[in-house]
């Protein structure tokens, strides 16, 4: 991120690039606060390490608040001196919503991390932890705004590299380092493949700017045509990996189980947001003319992903260690399938932005509910670190509110009332698929909703069953309460007025 700041110094008078500081404020603030935390860590004694935590949370909150002034109109910066409308960074409605999702997700993960760090008391290095989290958040916030492949790849890497470190941050733990290695190697391979794809696309179009690619890729001549097509597919791989689409999902369960819980939550929400926003930028912005190429590919990927995700979650034994986190991992793979459906539908329907809107709406709902679920899992994990599903038996007796809210979150993810927002989010995805004429995909999704309900409801019934043995009293620390309460309020508010989230389905995003 520091390289970005260096470029801003004026090299020569006429080469001064007017930088719209307000537009790039959110990612920059996150990065700067990250640096401040890294430096402050040296001076802060062990006693006041918690201060770093609250500083990072404040930093994230500030960068989220900075989105508000950008709401009025589309602003873009780092544009070409030649023609001003080809820019690297645009803060349009799509960017703002994804940045809000990313920063909100990071904020909630930070709240979970505060408790985890306090419980680990010196088991985890606070300074590095917060620095890595903030820098990953900054990278993730940068990605939706980037409008050229270079910034896109850099943002992707800035979001991913700190994540590898965060996954492996528990030094003594074998599982953590193993998970980190798996995540690292898979991700790096995917990025290499993606870069190869970008090089082919660059070869066939001669530019990296998405809008220019969109124009030039249409009139690619003869033998470059197959090169362009392979380039398109290979580029998609990197981002499909990040959203954990099927052939690239193997890392998800191992990583989430190995990683500390807040990081698993962070990856499941922000990691996926990075993935599908990258996919949207490439497919809808960069390559609308190749819709018949990436349309069916994404549709097949979506169908496979949701089926494998749900079916994988179906067979979890409730007695294995970390089975709760593993179930949430598989469920996040399944949910990624639902996220991909509208993108695939965008290829077929005439109004691509409407169907993209339903991905965004679904992602917002998914983020809130998933983080809520992770918060409650973190809460239970504090007294029963093995986090088996059987540990949730009779949670209602010991902690009624947490149990009720977890039930609400799970039913929202399943898409059944009382989770009304979950239901309507799924309805928008269904309607995007039906509108695009992808009947078979809608039917596959219908079957998946039923399979998903099985394990979500199995867990919910477990909560309300009579607890054997005396119910362990869960004392809920402050940050966890805030996190659970926040996600709960968001869920219930959205259930009351789904329009707040669903309005993205009928407004122009780009």
């Amino acid at each position, binding site marked *: 991120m520091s390289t970005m700041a260096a470029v801003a110094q004026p090299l020569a008078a006429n080469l001064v690039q007017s930088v719209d500081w307000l537009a790039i404020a959110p990612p920059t603030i996150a990065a700067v606060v990250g640096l401040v935390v890294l430096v402050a860590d040296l001076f802060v004694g062990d006693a006041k390490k918690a201060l770093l935590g609250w500083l990072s949370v404040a930093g994230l909150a500030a960068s989220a608040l900075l989105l508000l002034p950008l709401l009025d109109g589309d602003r873009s910066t780092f544009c070409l001196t030649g023609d001003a409308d080809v820019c690297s960074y645009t803060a349009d409605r799509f960017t703002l919503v994804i940045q809000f999702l990313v920063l909100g997700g990071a904020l909630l993960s930070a709240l979970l991390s505060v408790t985890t760090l306090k419980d680990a008391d010196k088991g985890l290095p606070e300074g590095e932890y917060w620095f890595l989290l903030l820098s990953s958040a900054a990278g993730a916030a940068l990605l939706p705004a980037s409008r050229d492949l270079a910034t896109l790849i850099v943002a992707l890497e800035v979001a991913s590299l700190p994540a590898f470190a965060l996954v492996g941050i528990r030094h003594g733990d074998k599982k953590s380092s193993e998970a980190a290695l798996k995540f690292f190697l898979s991700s790096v391979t995917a990025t290499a493949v993606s870069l190869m794809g970008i090089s082919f696309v660059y070869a066939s179009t001669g530019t990296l700017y998405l809008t220019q690619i969109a124009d030039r890729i249409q009139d690619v001549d003869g033998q470059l045509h197959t090169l362009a097509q392979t380039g398109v597919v290979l580029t998609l791989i990197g981002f499909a990996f990040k959203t954990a689409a099927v052939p690239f999902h193997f890392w998800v369960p191992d990583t989430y189980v190995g990683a500390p819980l807040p990081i698993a939550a962070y990856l499941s929400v922000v990691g996926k947001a990075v993935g599908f926003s990258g996919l949207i930028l490439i497919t809808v912005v960069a390559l609308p003319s190749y819709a018949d190429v990436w349309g069916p590919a994404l549709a097949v990927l979506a169908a496979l992903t949701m089926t494998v995700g749900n079916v994988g979650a179906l067979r979890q034994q409730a007695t294995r260690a970390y089975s709760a986190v593993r179930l949430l991992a598989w469920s996040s793979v399944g949910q990624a399938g639902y996220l991909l459906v509208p993108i695939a539908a965008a290829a077929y329907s005439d109004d691509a932005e409407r169907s993209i809107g339903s991905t965004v*709406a679904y992602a917002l709902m998914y983020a809130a509910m998933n983080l809520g679920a992770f918060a409650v899992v973190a809460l239970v994990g504090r007294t029963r670190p093995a986090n088996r599903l059987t540990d949730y038996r009779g949670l209602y007796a010991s902690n009624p509110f947490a149990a009720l809210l977890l039930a609400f979150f799970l039913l929202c993810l399943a898409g059944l*009332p009382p989770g009304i927002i979950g*239901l309507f989010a799924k*309805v928008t995805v269904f309607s995007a698929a*039906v509108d695009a004429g992808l009947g078979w995909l809608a039917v596959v999704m219908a079957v998946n909703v039923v399979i998903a309900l*099985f394990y979500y*409801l199995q867990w919910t019934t477990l909560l309300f069953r009579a607890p054997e043995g005396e119910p362990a009293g869960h004392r809920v620390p402050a940050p966890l309460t805030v996190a659970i309460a926040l996600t709960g309020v968001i869920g219930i508010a959205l259930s009351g007025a789904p329009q707040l989230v669903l309005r993205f389905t*009928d407004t122009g995003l780009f």
Partner: protein
Amino acid sequence: MIDINESVMQFLLAFVVVGPLIGAAAALLPAPPGLKGKSPEQAVLRHGMTVTGAVLIAAVVLALGFDHDHPSKMQATTDISWIPALDVRIHLGIDGISLPLLVLTALLTFLCALYSYFKMPAGPSPKAFVALLLVLESGTLASFAVLDLLLFFLAFEMVLIPMYFLIARWGGEQRTEAAWKFILFTLLGSVVMLLGLLLIGLKAGTFDMVALATDNGRSLTTSVQVIAVLAIGIGLAVKTPMWPLHSWLPDAHTAAPTVGSVLLAGVLLKMGTYGFVRILLPVAPDGFRTFAPYLAAFAVVGIIYGSLACLALAKQGAKGDLKRLIAYSSVGHMGFVLLGIATMTPTGVNGALFANIAHGLITGLLFFLVGALKDRTGTTDLDALAEETGAALYGKAPRLGGLLAFAAVASLGLPGLAGFWGEMLALFGAFKPAEDLSRPAFLTFMAIAAFGTLLTAAYMLVVVRRVCMGAVSQEAPRLADVHTYEFAAWTPLVALTVVAGLWPKALLGLTDPAVQQLLAGGTR
């Protein structure tokens, strides 16, 4: 009858739909100081009774305030936008078709609350029981009062979770598998229905039922209508249940507690058939016309299949469970309803709606009685009850035996009781179906269905013979006869069955104009 101004009617309807939800939330809270009652359980059960009672009173006042001269006009309508993005509007309203179902649901739920106030089903906390019951009531009432396709889907799904928990937590043996089969089967059906609803909503441009009904499928191409009817039809058929998709019903009924069975049979099955009449008939008539013969065929097979399954269960030594038998009889009765709808004639649809209400009353009563029998003898297994000559309920508990005989006779469709008019009109509709449906096919369906009534009579009377009659030995222990609270819960059902039987105009007067307009495409 009595005229109430429109805004009060609107409030009443809104209260009927939302009231139980608020009640459910209140049920979870600890009892307020004033209404402590003897114990928290008793307080919460009383709370359940008061809320369902209030909803029943509101429903009855709605019925009285309803303008009986124009039942085809949508009354007590509220129409506020909720989700403009999906074009979902909270559009409530009742007409001749939905009013009887609304009142029936309110009545049955109140009777269930009354019954469980005195006889709490075995299982954990009654607080959760009352909350779930109220959410279930709100879901069912919403499904009848709502006039927006997506809200209908929302209500359709709102009943799944409460009924799942009612079966899984308070049910009898094998309750978990039965609950799973119930919820997964119905959910698959309802999600497929969602696809159909979306197809119609997107192609026609609006989700509003009234607008779609007046448009009568003119803006939908026939191929779209066919796909939509197929998708929605499957979802509704699972819920009805239509023959091949029925296998969840017997398990759910055998495992559900008495109150659960009454509500499942009395109310939840009606949502499916109501969906056929309110959505498929007016909105996609051409699509429905292509499927009408197949629907009628499946319905008729359902009648014969249900009756034969009951006969197999009622046979000596077949170890048949009485609740399972009544569940299969519901498959049979619902077959008549579907046959009535498939004829696409005012007579047939009137018959279907009447049979709906009648089945709700009679099967509700039957399940109450079988539940009482299970409480007294501890089993509903026919062979255990009736050793070899019969359980001689006439001797051991004459009033209970008499009521069981009355319910069985009403269920087999004795004219003069509610069961007859629905089936008769359905058959009469099938005798002369809509003009472009093949007459010979429907004549054979009618003949087979009429033969089905004979089979229904056969197994019902075999049940009466094996349960009520029998060589009673003098020293046989007399069972406790009907208690007062049981009488309180059952007399409304008995009375309504007789009144509906002797004075069918009470219901048909309401539904006929509405159905005429619905089938004529809302032009009148």
